[in-house]
């Protein structure tokens, strides 16, 4: 009896892995097919702009708020740590480096997943349930080119821009807390910051933002497109999209940081 229980667990594990690999392959193929329409007529520029508005501009407020608080808390925590070594002057460098290399791209990606990614999945899932995707196909409009592609491109364009805003707001907020509240010397703060940050750090941040943007767009559109066409199916797909996209961002963050940056 215990033997068969073990066998069943093994079977479930195997099935889970096979399904996971299958979904990854399916998603990759779907994304590539959608991206294949980038330079093909009909040109989707107008819909990319519409999606940039919905996803990018729509996420701006939350990015500013999270950026500000991230910078502020980093300054507080960093001051506490650095003060123990008498190196408060390094606060600017610490705050800016953490934000530019790591927290800007990752937290920015999380905010976009929560604000825009879940909306993408839910919207496409609902279009599947209500047969709007089929209606598009019957009207000779390819949903991959019309619905999926603009959203993937929009997240890819929007995330680096949002991360840039996040970085600047975070650094400014860190400066306010560090210099005005905690009394770190303003000159030292700025001087250390400009001295310690190189183009290499900045480029790493941009690469991360671009890759994360692509991941979010690809995963969230895929989850919506392949959602089970029921209301529960869409709800489940939305939850799964947020979880899978967040985990993928963290895994990819580690890979990018360790291999390339």
């Amino acid at each position, binding site marked *: 009896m215990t033997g068969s229980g073990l066998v069943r667990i093994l079977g479930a594990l195997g099935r889970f892995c096979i399904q996971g690999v299958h979904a990854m392959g399916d998603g990759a193929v779907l994304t590539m097919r959608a991206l294949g329409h980038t330079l093909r007529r009909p040109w989707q520029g107008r819909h990319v702009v519409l999606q940039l*508005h919905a996803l990018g*501009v729509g996420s701006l407020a939350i990015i500013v708020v999270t950026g500000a608080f991230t910078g502020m808390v980093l300054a507080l925590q960093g001051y506490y740590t650095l003060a123990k*070594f008498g190196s408060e002057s390094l606060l600017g460098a610490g705050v800016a480096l953490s934000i530019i290399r790591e927290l800007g791209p990752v937290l920015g990606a999380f905010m976009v997943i929560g604000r825009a990614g879940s909306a993408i999945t839910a919207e496409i899932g609902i279009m599947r349930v209500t047969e709007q995707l089929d209606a598009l196909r019957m009207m000779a409009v390819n949903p991959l080119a019309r619905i999926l592609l603009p959203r993937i491109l929009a997240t890819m364009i929007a995330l*680096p821009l949002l991360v*840039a*805003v996040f*970085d*600047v707001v975070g650094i400014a907020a860190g400066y306010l807390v560090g210099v005005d509240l905690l009394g770190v010397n303003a000159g030292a703060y700025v*001087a250390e910051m400009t001295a310690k940050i*190189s183009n290499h750090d900045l480029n790493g941040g941009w690469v991360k933002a671009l890759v994360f943007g692509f991941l979010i767009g690809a995963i969230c559109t895929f989850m919506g497109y392949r959602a089970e066409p029921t209301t529960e199916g869409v709800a489940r797909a939305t939850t799964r999209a947020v979880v899978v996209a967040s985990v993928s961002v963290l895994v990819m963050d580690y890979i990018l940081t360790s291999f390339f940056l």
Partner: protein
Amino acid sequence: MQSYQRIEIVVGLFVLIGLACAGWMAARLGQVGGLGASGYELKAVFDDIGGVRVGSDVMMAGVVIGRVDDVRLDEDSKAIALLRIDDGVRISEDAFASVRTKGIIGDRYIRITQGVEDSYLADGDEIEETESALNIEDLVSKYIFSGKE
């Protein structure tokens, strides 16, 4: 169609803000060359540069007046540092460069002590007088041995 034009404007604004933020960081923090390659260059040779590296500060009287552009080894196994000094900062010919540490375990930087002569160094000149990094282990061992004698 009116509303689409408004959306276009908003999106344009959004892209502009993002690019402005990115540009500000690149210009302010990223040491983008070309535009910002101002100042003049001085050379200094040290016996031991103690871990000063590209980007380290150059300070005079505790004020940052430039940064280290390049560090390399010359034929006599000495360290050559190229220092980029801000325009408007004049360094006399008998000035003195030393490798110092901020705090006990802080960053290494190059301190320049102003001399007394009235003639000043120009682009490409060398600071003749240098003092190498203080090595704590050397100091400690020196102290111990001198105590024994």
